[in-house]
């Protein structure tokens, strides 16, 4: 089971058990993105408050496995205060992490998800929230 411990690190399980930023903003207060993982039926709703090109806050609700929910928890925490460009760069870096590249994050918890790249079937779980982030950034820019 040691290989599994790469996947289910303590940090990940902590985010799964105590998700940060779980919830929703009041209507009209944030950009909202709904995304499904069509292969498994998991879904996420990501909400972002963007002011002056910066992410003021992000919240999420959804259903998913430990990997997808902990990833959403970390992402929503990590993007707080970042410019949209910085947030997008973070999403790019996360893709790199999933490809097995060694990437460092200012928000270190994210690095605990590096083990997912050894479980190709689970990469989609980990990237769901980050794909929602990309969409949210796109949406914010066009508004």
């Amino acid at each position: 089971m040691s290989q599994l411990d790469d996947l289910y690190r303590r940090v990940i399980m902590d985010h799964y058990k105590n998700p940060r930023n779980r919830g929703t903003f009041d209507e009209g207060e944030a950009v909202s993105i709904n995304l499904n993982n069509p292969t498994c039926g998991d879904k996420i709703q990501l909400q972002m408050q963007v002011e002056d090109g910066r992410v003021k806050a992000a919240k999420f609700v959804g259903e998913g496995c430990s990997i997808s929910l902990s990833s959403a928890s970390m992402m929503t925490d990590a993007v707080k205060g970042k410019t949209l460009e910085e947030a997008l760069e973070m999403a790019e870096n996360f893709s790199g992490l999933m490809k097995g590249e060694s990437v460092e994050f200012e928000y270190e918890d994210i690095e605990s998800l590096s083990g997912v790249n050894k479980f190709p079937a689970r990469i989609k779980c980990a990237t769901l929230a980050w794909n929602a982030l990309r969409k949210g950034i796109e949406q914010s820019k066009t508004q």
Partner: protein
Amino acid sequence: MNIEEIRRQFPILHQEVNGHPLVYLDSAATSQKPTAVIEAVKNYYEWDNANVHRGVHTLGSRATDAYEGAREKLRRFINARSTEEIIFTRGTTTAINLVASSYARAVCKEGDEIVITPMEHHSNLIPWQQVAQATGAVLKYIPLQQDGSISLEDVEKTITEKTKMVSVMYVSNVLGVVNPVKEIAAIAHRHGAKMLVDGAQSTPHLKVDVQDLDCDFYALSGHKMCAPTGIGALYGKKELLQEMEPIEFGGEMIDHVGLYNSTWKDLPWKFEGGTPIIAGAVGLAAAIDFLESIGMENIDRHEKQLTSYALERMVEIEGLTIYGPGQDRAGLVTFNLDDVHPHDVATVLDAEGVAVRAGHHCCQPLMRWLNVTATARASFYLYNTEADVDRLITALIKTKEYFGHVST
């Protein structure tokens, strides 16, 4: 039925996955292939490969004989009246789409009804949604009982004089329910409707007799019954298929081609445009021989025994929910473990060498009906044993322990 002898014929089963001997419990997604099928495909490519229906040369005749021989074999296997009623397709999905696009679109008008159930696989749901949207027909659902089965009383209430098409799966890939398709076909016919049976999950496991079922159409896939992927078939009653127009046009399906008008070949070829999956048909024929050598009744009995053993053992695991009826079910068990997402279950089981499916099983409406986003599923076939079930149970207990410290 000598399981050890059967297992010897499946080379893929004899390997280690993640350091453990493989336990393959995902046959409802696709079955493994016996040596006889692998060899038949290999021999075909090594000795007989040529295009069908046009070669004057020897290989061309061999390939044609093999392809048409497979059609006759399948006709006998499901007891169709004639090979004209057997159309080779890519699989169940293409077979259902053929009926939806060619038959139902031509027949359905605004206000007509198409009847299905909420347990249908997406491939027996979306084509009908599309027909309904295109024609203005109404898509109606036969409601499910508490345990996921359907009652004939409800069928009687749902099918009306307006119903043109009824399409129901024989065996549910999630609940393991075996639907009373013969009775449903009789009710459909009493109202002048046609009946399609989605046989993806029944053909590999039960003795199928399309004349006895008296369905108008029957769709099946080869890859779930020991044959290669990419080959399947549509059975249709000859008089209906004759009425129907092809939906794919091109080579192989034509009779006379003029500059502005053309005519089609006879059944079944008018529906088989393009070079078909010849090696797939050869593999399907070998798979049918293999299954028949064991006997469909024996396979059915073996799977039922295995499933009741699995159900018995799974009840021992606290916090495990099983979906579907307690008895009279096909060889699969769909379940969830409290507080552990099915993806996480499947990953831990995989680390123990146990392959199960996790997800919505291409049945999103049914998942909503069950009030879950996803489930895990262990599905059995003729090569599975009680020892496989024991490995599943042990791995499930480990999964519980592994996630024991997490509760959400």
